[in-house]
């Protein structure tokens, strides 16, 4: 069942900003668990989810950690296929050098091909 060299099986789409809700954290947790079980995982950041990748995030005023520390660990979990929606980047006026991790921009056509090629696609 488990073949680490196969095509990625799980695609997790992250569409929510850090700190504002638990969606981003709970979506990342699914990706980390799948990776820990040797599943190949693709992450796609769409819309405000892209802001999860901004440099210089901090804990909140009550000590809420946010998700940046988790993102910094992705490489340890062999999650290195990080995609960002190019349209979302443009709408936020962001460029990839403002992000904390190397990412690949994808357009709508590529997004729909990715959605079709993964065995499981989960939206968060």
């Amino acid at each position, binding site marked *: 069942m488990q073949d680490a060299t196969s095509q990625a099986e799980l695609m997790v789409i992250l*569409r929510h900003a850090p700190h504002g809700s638990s969606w981003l954290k709970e979506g990342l947790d699914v990706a980390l668990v799948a990776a820990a079980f040797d599943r190949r995982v693709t992450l796609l950041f769409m819309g405000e989810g892209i802001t999860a990748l901004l440099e210089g995030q901090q804990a909140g005023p009550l000590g809420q950690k946010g998700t940046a520390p988790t993102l910094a660990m992705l490489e340890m979990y062999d999650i290195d296929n990080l995609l960002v929606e190019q349209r979302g980047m443009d709408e936020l006026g962001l460029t990839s050098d403002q992000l904390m991790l190397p990412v690949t921009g994808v357009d709508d056509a590529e997004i729909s091909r990715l959605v079709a090629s993964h065995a499981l696609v989960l939206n968060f």
Partner: protein
Amino acid sequence: MLLHTLNRPPTSQVLAQALAGMGPDDKLLLIEDGVIGALPAHREHFNRVAGRLYALQEDLESRGLLPLRDQAVRVVDVEGFISMTETCERTVSWY
């Protein structure tokens, strides 16, 4: 061919996200508050999926939208919904 479900009205940016994720043969099923998109006034939002747009009958009915819907939107009940999940390879939910 995939099935996509959308439970948000067209005023939500989730519609654009769902459309971005859809392939050229995929179908879009409006459920819950998403069925507000079946009103004729919202037709232009769904140009990209013309002929592939469905809405859930139960959710249209409970909201009084069944008689007001755009006739180009195909209506399916929960059995039809299940049947679409059988025929389509997978289902992706947008919410």
